[in-house]
């Protein structure tokens, strides 16, 4: 029996889909059999981020409505042997599925896969309720901004009232230089306020934009700092104890030389 993990945030645009894509690909890189489920019905995007948008035939709603078998709707990623995507429907809305159907679907997927990763839509309405229904555990993505942390707090409360306690937090788009200057909330501040366990931090990384442009998850890149951060997160999700990466600001040897010549 595999594990069902939902990636959620409340606020939109904090990196849920990117995180889902990278965690999923990260599991596949470890040789785990994993399926990504796009629960954002009507606004699907995980397919685009994964670069699998041109291979969709059936979608999640086709499965729940019985238009096709589950296996027919799964898209296998040709780059990674053990990675699959179940895309969302684009021409339907959140009410096309109910939490019971999602529970059933997750159960069925968990029999075949080591990990089922669900990309939750923004908001706290039906789409959110659907996405979390079948999840064993939740990963919350936030950014170091008042609005995103506030929404994360609300989501933590809602998850608890649905009996999903002990969610894990990912703080995305940390800018070490701004944190150092005191112009961005640091991890300790956020953890202190939300009172949840930290799963990992993702530094702001331009490579995420590039990889999203290409439809290739950043985690496969050997030099991207966000890639390292996602790999660490994936290892932590498998139960491994991986220390947090230290956020170096550009004070290396070359940066110092540069500074000397500039002034």
């Amino acid at each position, binding site marked *: 029996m595999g594990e069902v993990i939902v990636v959620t945030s409340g606020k939109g645009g904090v990196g849920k889909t990117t995180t889902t894509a990278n965690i999923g690909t990260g599991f596949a890189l470890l040789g785990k059999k994993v399926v990504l489920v796009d629960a954002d019905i009507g606004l699907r995007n995980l397919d685009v981020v994964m670069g699998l948008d041109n291979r969709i035939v059936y979608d999640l709603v086709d499965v729940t409505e019985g238009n096709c078998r589950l296996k027919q709707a799964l898209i296998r990623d040709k780059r990674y042997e053990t990675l699959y995507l179940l895309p969302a429907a684009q021409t339907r809305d959140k009410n096309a599925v109910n939490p019971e159907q999602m529970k059933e679907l997750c159960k069925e997927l968990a029999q075949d896969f080591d990990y089922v990763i669900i990309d939750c839509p923004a908001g706290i309405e039906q789409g959110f309720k659907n996405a979390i229904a079948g999840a064993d555990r939740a990963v919350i993505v936030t950014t170091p*901004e*008042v609005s995103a*942390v*506030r929404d994360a*707090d*609300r989501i933590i*409360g*809602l998850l608890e*009232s649905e009996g999903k306690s002990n969610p894990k937090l990912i703080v995305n788009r940390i800018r070490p230089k701004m*944190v150092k*200057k*005191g*112009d*961005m*909330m*640091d991890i300790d*501040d956020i953890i202190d*306020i939300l009172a949840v366990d930290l799963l990992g931090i993702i530094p702001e990384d331009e490579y995420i934009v590039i990889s999203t442009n290409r439809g290739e998850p950043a985690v496969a890149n050997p030099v991207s700092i966000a890639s390292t951060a996602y790999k660490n997160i994936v290892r932590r999700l498998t139960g491994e104890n991986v220390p947090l990466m230290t956020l170096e600001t550009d004070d290396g040897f070359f940066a110092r030389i540069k500074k000397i010549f500039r002034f």
Partner: protein
Amino acid sequence: MFELILKLFGKEPASSKDIAKERLRLVLVHDRVNVSPQFMEVLKDDMIRVISNYMEINEKEMEVSLTNNKSSVALVANIPVNRMKRGVYTQE
């Protein structure tokens, strides 16, 4: 530039991180109360339980609420006392 002058005079402005933290703290006080409608009732029951060890209070007319002004949030309780209990918890 302005900040630089302030720094020269030793008046460093509050870092924007601290402003963010403070704003977040305030907004969460209210959010967390509103998440559960039973929150205030549970709090009230707990207060009644504790206070009843020391005095008899009028539970029906008791009022508990959160009020806020710009920079702080306060728990305001108006609890009519009927009678003090004597000798139950005298200090030694």
